[in-house]
């Protein structure tokens, strides 16, 4: 069942995170989430379920929102990753982060990073102008604290800010 070697197989992973290149040795079975958190010290991304459903671990890999708990670190070799730590430029909250703050769209904050990354990806694709669409954008992440209402407002406000006024609905 397990390989013969008593030492874990290790490999080097080179990855750009939030614009900065990192190079580190990791075991081949280390998940991308654990690699980001414990090898690179970027603990903003969290683990809530480790089987891809809760979304707390969502990051952007080459621009696409993915579950970092469902990837091996070694699979990210050569990729460009964005995590929550990269959203605030120069310490200034991004429009989305500011909208979350204004609307009280976070309580315990554990799921927040995953939501911010999922929403960031969605808003890059285009505007989100209705409650229904906002709900869909949020549907791939789970929050147990807020009940989502404040997040919906935050998404719509941010879309307005980034994409301009709503088209006639």
């Amino acid at each position, binding site marked *: 069942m397990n390989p013969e070697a008593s030492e874990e197989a290790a490999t080097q992973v080179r990855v750009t995170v939030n614009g900065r290149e990192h190079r580190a040795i990791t075991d081949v079975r280390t998940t991308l989430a654990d690699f980001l958190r414990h090898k690179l010290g970027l603990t903003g991304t969290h*683990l809530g379920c480790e089987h891809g459903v809760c979304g707390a671990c969502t990051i952007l890999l080459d621009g696409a929102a993915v579950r970092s708990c469902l990837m091996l670190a070694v699979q990210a070799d050569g990729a460009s990753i964005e995590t929550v730590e990269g959203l605030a430029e120069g310490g200034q*909250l991004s429009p989305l982060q500011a909208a979350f*703050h204004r609307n009280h769209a*976070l309580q*315990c904050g554990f799921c927040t990073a995953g939501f911010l990354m999922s929403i960031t990806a969605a808003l890059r694709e285009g505007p989100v102008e209705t409650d229904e669409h906002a709900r869909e954008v949020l549907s791939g992440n789970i929050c*147990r604290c807020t*009940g989502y209402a404040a997040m919906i407002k935050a998404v719509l406000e941010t879309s307005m800010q980034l994409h301009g006024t709503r088209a006639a609905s």
Partner: protein
Amino acid sequence: MSRPGEREAATRAPAAAAPKQNMIGAAIERREDYRLLTGQGEFLDDLDMPDALEAAFLRSDLGHARILGIDTSAALELPGVVAVFTGDDIRPMMKPMPAKVAHPALQEMPRLPMALDEVHYVGEPVAVIIATSRYIAEDALELIEIDYEDLPAISSTAAALAPGAPLAHLGARDNIAVHVVQRAGDPDAALAAAPHVLSGTFAITRSGGHSIECRAVAARYDTVTRQLVVWDSTQAPHYARNALASLYDMQEDDIRLIAPRDVGGGFGPKAQFYGEEAVIGWVAMQLRRPVKWIEDRRENFISAMMERTQTHRIKVAFDDDGTLIAMKDVFEHDQGAYVAGLQVPMITLSTVPGQYKIPHIHTELYSCYTNMVPTSSVRGAGRPQAVAAMERMMDRIAEYLGLDPAEVRRRNLIQPDEFPYKVGIMFRDGSPLTYDSGNYPELLAGTLERLDYDGWRRRQGELRAEGRLIGIGIACYVEGCGLGPYEGAKARLTNRGEVLVTLAAAPQGQGYETVYAQIASDALGLDMDYIRVTTGDTGRIPFGQGTFASRITATAGPAVLQACQALRARIFATAAIMLKVEADNFVFRGERVCLAEDESISVTLREVTQVANVGKHGITLLRGVTAGLETQAYFAPERAAYASGAHAAVVEVDPETGRVTVLKYVIGHDCGTVINPLLADGQVLGGFAAGIGNALYEEQFYDEAAQPQTTSYLDFSLPSSMEVPPVELFHIQSPSPLNPLGAKGAGEGGTIPAPAAIANATEDALRSFGARINEMPVTPPRVAAAIAGRAPAAR
């Protein structure tokens, strides 16, 4: 002599004389947010502990079995494994962990930190591996060999109570943990004599807390000071610290238990004390190395405490008007394998009467041992079940008499001028159940108006003609909250010239760093910028109870208020001496303490601390100054406060698939004085999402062998944004006379009546079929079965 501003302030709140925003009641944005939004949260596994070893627990995979032998030798040999401990290996520490809430008649079976001879539920910790990484620890788990002797397992309360049932615990007398009866009046006589009596049987399955952060605990022992520091993702730091001190036989001050600044949700399960918490601390002391255990979701599903099924057999007696005469509810509660605490069923016991005047009451609890994970509070804590039973019957009464369900409720509501209202039975805190304040008719009216109840009744008929099944459901509830025994706070003017408020309580997202700074600001009359709040550390404040049962605003709030009022007086007294004036009319202006009538006469906060805190080495303290500007207050409420609410739902049922869709939902909420509306709304709406989960989606199954069937989110559903409907929420404020803030609790009101409201609405939609909704959650298979007139087939 007082100034106009002060006089006004005195009538509205503590003496806040500053010309600035009144903080209590203000929707202040949270201080916590910046770090949480930018990925700098300080959750336990985010803390920098690179030298910590990691633990993994081997857990029973049988519901009930004797442990014949455990062989850990292969596990020990795996490179990277530092130690392995079984229950046997930690005997000095293996004492029973007492129930958090007990009862004189409780048949308490010992709950040990790890199993010793017998396991009683799938998920019970049996051994622990300590290794250099969690990955290796999990590898080692697979190398432990255990020899079990399978024993019959009890997988439901019905099985527990069946005549000749096997024992969930071999050493027990039977499977009843406790049997409690509460009575008011003469219910049996009243039921016998009443013109109308209706019965109903309802089964309500709840589920787990499923905070997105699972449990976590880390410990480090300092061999020099011989003190243990434990970081614990807990809702109850002092409770946990006290438990550890008892288990380890250590002085309480030699254990410092800290809830990290950020805890990723609690909702009840983290307010309990678990064997894992005891084991990790002990291991850290044995190995003299820091150790941490980060629970994973699989463990959380099978070993974090949850609430499970209650079956209520309820009878109501009423007259031709629908006026309630008597109520008798006998219910079975699935307590699980151990009584970690009786709070859930005891709360159910006293919550059933709700907002109604009922002269004769009989509530009766059979708390049953089963071979499943122990029950403990999950948001709502036994109240959703009670509300479901009573509110379903109110609708049945209306149907029976051909009356409108809202009208039947109106006729029975306790009126606003009847407070304080003695229900006639006891509450869990041992005092006679007394509702402090409320306005139930206004709540109900407000909810129904916003729902457009009359409009929907009309539309319901029209739409039925089109073949659409629309239903309207109402559910009213009361919520005992703000519980004692006490909660504490300290306030100190630090050497940096800021006020540090130290709460014993620990937050999991409720915004304590903000809310208590607001309260402190008003109590002191000092700008919030000069106030900082710290929480959840037994090393900073010796006594506390914990965050649960929506109690902190009503207890820690007054404690902060009182501590800060006292500190304000001390600061002013010190300033007066420093300034050589005889006065206590001071105000804070920014960082200055100024004479009210001449603000140019002032000292800075820092200067004050120099005098009273720091002093000058060897120099006598100024005469009259009391050294050390720190105060503390422990607020002990006289009894529980009562929040209340009224929910109403409009649903549509798909008659073919049984799917229930919420078309409209209104929440009327009364939690007394609202300290921060932004946060209060967040609590109610968050609670509502959990309530929708209980109403429609969440159900954790065990099979007949007491094997959990839902062990991941692939077979268990938490509501996402698609499943939580929009809600219209309004507040009324009936301040509580039991604390100076007038505050009650806001954490659970969104959850409590949701299953009842949805079940009522669903049955209303199906009235033409005569279908009965007797089980919650109201899932499509159950609805389809109800429509077809049959019970759902065995799974």
